[in-house]
Structures are given as structure tokens and as C-alpha cells.
């Protein structure tokens, strides 16, 4: 009954205060504005027949309260593995071999599955790319949304149902009383993703991890979902970690972005700084290789070569074999670390000034 009582104020308010989680008292929890989630030198290795894959190779970043952080990169850049490591849902062959994942200052890496189960869905939840495979096809949608509050917050059946209806309204599912009893297959793709978001929100988590949640959606529906996520961030102060390969999507939703390449962060900073004025040749390449809806370019500048093998990555900077700026020092081990630039941004490139030159010459004739 005491748990039920504790849940009451959580349901009414947007956030029922910083709950002391099973991970122990968190020093950072009381200070608003401090990072909710922090990764410190995270490393994930996957054992395969071809050898040890360095899927995530020393990733550090922090997510502030109410902030949306983008994690962009191509397939194999380690962005999804980073996300999965946070939630402790790595594939069986993969393991976190080093580093810390700090939620409110408490490290999640050493926690047992049982301890993690009390955090997953409660303090950290996740939205997947394919809602149809993430939802239970034989369970009514309303019950799926109500499940979290029942299990984690100890709500009674009727109170959880009320909470589910309220969430369905908040994520913009029309006619929630009727839709509560529907099954996932009766929903459109966009509505299913709204259901996923309602489930993710159901226990007022601190962080929602989003794994390409709009990639499978049409552009008008993607626009609706992005605006919904932005509104929820603003209204409830939940933080988002948003994984995608689509740079403009990040520009629309996120405040800060990490560009990943070969399991490492190539560039980090304010979304507009990084995407409009890149300081890493890989980011620059991504920006210049995509066609623009608003202007026609003569031809697209592709990035030559292909992504590195993560079993035996190239020495030094992971990007140097494909990089036009590469010099002798780029090939030297260890790989260049992220360096702080003015304005709180960071880059791993040793010759980042050359990006400025490229951008300057490109913009001058116009």
C-alpha cells in the first residue's frame, strides 16, 4: 500500500520528484540542469567468428534534463549498440567491457538483470523503429499501456486504466475510450508509434531512448511524431536520446548531437553548430552528400570508400582512409581524442580548421 501511496503524487504531477531508485541515492538527482544520463568512455565488444568487433569504442556524452540529444551515424557506426548498452539489452554476444553509464549519477553497468528490470520501463524506456514488432499483437493496446504503471508503480487496475486513457489523449490518439480495447493491427503505423510513445511515457521516466522511431514512417507522419516528441520533452521534462541516420531529423528535434563513426564520436556539440558549420570531415561529408529540398546542387559530393572494419580498424583516426584532409599524424595510434573547441563543441579531427576553409570557398561564390 505504501508503494501505491508513493505512486499517487507521481500520477498527478508531471514528474513525482526525483525518486530514489534501486541504484542507490544519486548525488546528481537533486540538482536540476545537471546531466540525467552520462556515458563515460563506454566500450562494447561483440564476439563473432571473424574476431572481436569493437562496436562501441570509447563513447562519452551527457544528456541534460529535458534535453533531446541526437546520435547520428550510418549503419555500423555503433549508434544503436550505444543505445542498447544503456538499457542493458545488448545481443547475447555483445558485452560492455569498459566505461560507465551513469543515470542520476549511479552506474548501471554493474547492475544485475533484476536490478535493471526495476529501472527499465520505470526510469529509462525505449521506442523502437518497428512498433508492430515491439507491441504485443494479442494484447489490447490499453492494457499494454497500463502494464507499466501496474508493475512499476503498483497502480490498481482501474487507476492504471485511467492513466492509460490519459496518456492516449496526451499522445494524440483520437477516441481513446474506444481505441483502448483495440489491438495493434487495428492501428496505422503512425498511431502504433503513438502507442509506443504512450507506453514509454507511462511511468514518467527520466530518459526515453529512441531507436530510429520515425524511419519507417511517411514524411507527414514523421513530422507529426517529431512534433509530438518535442512537445513531450518540453512539457514533462523527459530527456531523449534519439538515434537516427537522418541529419535533418536531428536538426528538427534535438538540441545537441553526437556524430558517430566507426564506434567513436567524431563530433559533438550544439545541433546548429555541428550540422551547419561542421568541424569534422565526416560530418562535412554527410552534409554535402545529401541532396537538399530547398536548392539544387550541381552534383553531390560522395564520401569515397566504405566504412571501416571494426574487427581491425585502421590505426589512428578511424576516418583517415576516406579523408581528404588526412596527414601523417592522423595515422598514429592512439586515435585522436575529442578536443574541446570554443562554444562547448568537440571534434576528433586534428585538422578541423580545413572544414572552415572548405565551407568558406563553397559559400563565397553564392
Amino acid at each position: 500500500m505504501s508503494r501505491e501511496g508513493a505512486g499517487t503524487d507521481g500520477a498527478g504531477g508531471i514528474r513525482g520528484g526525483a525518486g530514489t531508485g534501486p541504484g542507490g541515492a544519486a548525488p546528481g538527482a537533486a540538482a536540476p540542469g545537471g546531466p540525467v544520463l552520462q556515458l563515460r568512455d563506454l566500450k562494447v565488444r561483440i564476439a563473432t567468428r571473424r574476431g572481436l568487433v569493437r562496436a562501441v569504442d570509447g563513447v562519452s556524452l551527457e544528456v541534460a534534463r529535458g534535453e533531446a540529444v541526437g546520435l547520428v551515424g550510418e549503419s555500423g557506426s555503433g549508434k544503436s549498440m550505444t543505445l542498447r548498452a544503456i538499457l542493458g539489452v545488448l545481443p547475447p554476444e555483445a558485452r560492455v567491457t569498459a566505461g560507465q553509464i551513469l543515470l542520476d549519477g549511479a552506474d548501471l553497468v554493474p547492475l544485475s538483470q533484476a536490478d535493471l528490470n526495476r529501472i527499465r520501463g520505470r526510469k529509462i524506456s525505449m521506442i523502437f523503429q518497428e512498433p508492430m514488432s515491439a507491441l504485443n499483437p494479442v494484447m489490447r493496446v490499453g492494457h499494454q499501456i497500463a502494464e507499466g504503471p501496474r508493475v512499476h508503480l503498483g497502480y490498481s487496475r482501474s487507476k492504471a486504466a485511467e492513466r492509460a486513457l490519459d496518456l492516449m489523449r496526451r499522445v494524440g490518439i483520437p477516441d481513446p475510450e474506444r481505441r483502448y480495447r483495440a489491438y495493434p493491427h487495428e492501428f496505422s503505423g503512425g498511431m502504433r508509434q503513438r502507442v509506443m510513445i504512450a507506453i514509454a511515457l507511462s511511468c514518467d521516466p527520466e530518459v526515453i531512448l529512441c531507436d530510429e522511431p520515425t524511419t519507417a514512417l511517411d514524411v507527414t507522419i514523421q513530422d507529426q511524431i517529431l512534433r509530438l516528441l518535442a512537445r513531450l520533452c518540453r512539457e514533462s521534462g523527459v530527456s531523449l536520446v534519439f538515434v537516427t541516420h537522418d541529419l535533418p531529423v536531428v536538426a528538427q528535434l534535438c538540441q545537441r548531437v553526437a556524430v558517430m563513426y566507426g564506434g567513436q564520436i567524431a563530433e559533438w556539440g550544439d545541433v546548429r553548430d555541428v550540422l551547419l558549420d561542421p568541424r569534422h570531415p565526416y560530418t562535412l561529408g554527410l552534409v554535402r552528400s545529401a541532396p537538399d529540398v530547398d536548392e539544387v546542387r550541381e552534383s553531390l559530393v560522395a564520401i569515397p570508400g566504405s566504412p571501416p572494419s571494426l574487427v581491425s580498424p585502421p590505426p589512428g583516426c578511424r576516418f583517415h582512409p576516406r579523408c581528404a584532409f588526412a596527414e601523417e599524424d592522423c595515422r598514429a595510434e592512439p586515435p585522436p581524442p575529442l578536443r574541446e573547441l570554443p562554444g562547448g563543441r568537440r571534434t576528433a579531427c586534428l585538422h578541423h580548421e580545413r572544414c572552415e576553409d572548405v565551407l568558406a570557398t563553397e559559400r563565397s561564390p553564392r
Partner: protein
Amino acid sequence: MTGPGAELLSARGIAVWFPVGSAVTARLRHRPRLLRAVDGVDLDLARGEALALVGESGSGKSTLALALAGLRPVNRGSITYDGRPLPTRRSRADRRRIQIVFQDPYSSLNPRLTVGGMLRELIAVHKVVPPREQAAFAAELLRLVGLGEDALRAYPRQFSGGQRQRVAIARALALRPEVLVADEPVSALDVSVQATILNLLADLRRELGPSLLLISHNLAVVRHLCDRTAVMYLGRIVEVGPTERLFTSPAHPYTRGLLAAIPRLAPAGGQEPGGTAGPAVAGDMPSALSVPSGCRFRTRCPHARERCAAEDPALASAPGEPGHLAACHFAFEGIAAGAP
């Protein structure tokens, strides 16, 4: 933009319907339940032109492309090629003229044939070149798409996604088609690889000059590659016109919404990330099983009035711009009023 008579491939009143549900209920209702994937489309593709078909999933763009390529019979309407009607069962020569590149290069190539085997088979069946020139021609095709000669002996699984799409393009080009249909040719590829394939398509068009019908949901890709653009919604073309004009002064509310919904690197008007503006287009596309009366877009249209539910708007051209057509009762009102 394209004068009459220049059309290479023309469609008039094309409709493709799929019966859904069981045959028993269909008999009880005395008519089958029909999914109207394509529901009355007129389209012209001129020689050497690049035309884009854009729309969201379920708009019928891929079905229309398959029908034009002769891979899907049509229920209504006619398709003519160079002024000559094409029958449902096309001759080998006609099939050769229109070739298609599919979206997913992982499933559109035969995994048990080497690239050389695949190309030689095609070349031999269609007698593209004399037998003794086959090998040289196959190598030439691979050079065209930027692959080395050693690719001839390789199997599709040995290639990356971008390379496979190059093989798929070489396969389509092997028959020296006059029309190349590309159905979402880059959407299965990584961003940095997409650019190389888009550049390749642009170069091939310049060098070989086939007409291109590009099916895509990515409007940036369309703007980059195509001369004209047709926007589809729920089985119909709602707007068609020269690409530049359609992107700079879209006339149909759906086209406007579609353009506004695209995320941009620099959000319009210096909007903050995660801004408070409402969505560009509200709601979901209705099911093709129950198409709304009148205008198909009215259920999501911010300007819908009574007339929109009663009357189905036909494609009408903009004043002074015969090549720019939109199917909206009020499409050119603003433009007409504001014209000098």
C-alpha cells in the same frame, strides 16, 4: 514543357484494383471488395525526360510504375508507347524497352548467378549483341556503372549495398532500354552511398539519354534528378508540373504540406529545434478500401469546404502555365488573384 506528340510513354485513365477479403463474402455482396491502388491516372513521359512520381506509402506510386513497366495488368485505361497501344501481354521487344531498378538490391538480384552470368543470360535471350561480343559488352556495362571487370565473376552476396544497386542498374541497362524505371533506388542505402548512386543515375542519363521514371518518397532526391514531378495521393495524381515550379510554388494543399513536413538542416524561419508549431499535415491517409467522396484529400485538408465533399476535382492547369496542373477546386485562386 513537353509539347504534344513528344510523349514516349503515355497512360490514360489507368486503374489498378486489388480484390481483398474472401471470395465467399464477395459473392454474398455480389461484388468484390476492391482496394483502389491506382484509380484513374493520366501520365505522359517524354523522350529523354526525367519524371518523378512522389507520394507516401499507399499512394499507389509503385503500383503505377509496375503497371507502366508491364509487370502488373491494369483494370482500366490504356498505355501507349510511341503512339502505339501496348497490349496486356507485351512482346519481348516491348518489354526490353522499359526496364526497372528495384528498391532493395538485396532481394532483386539472383543470389545463385554471378554478375557475369546474369548479364550474359539477358544479353543472349534478348539478342542485344552478337554472341562473340557478349563478354565485352558485359564488361562495358560494368564500367558504365563504375564496377571493375572482376565483378563479372562475383556473386551478389560479395557486394555491398551500393555496389549491388550498381549491378541492378547494369542489369537494367543491359537491354539498352528507352525508359528506365527506378523504384526508390537509394532508400535502402546509407546516406554517404546514396550520393554515388544518384550521381551515377544523373551521369547515365547524360551519357545514354534514356527517359527516367523515378519513384520516390524523398523529395530532395526528386528535386536533384528530375525535370518534372507528379505528386500522388490515394491512387490519383493531385499535382504535376515542372520540378522547379512545383517546389517553389506548389498549388495543391497536399503538395504544400508534404514540402513543409520535410525536416531541414536549417529549420525554416530560424525555428528552434523542437519548436512549437503544429504538424504540416494532420491525420492519416484514409484507406484505399474506402476512398472519401469528392476530393480525396479533404479529410486532412485545412481548406476543405462543402464543395470538396461533393465534387471530385479534376486536374486543371494553372493560368498561363499549361504544364502545371493541380486537382484542387481552389488550387490557383491565390495565384490567379495575385497575378499581375
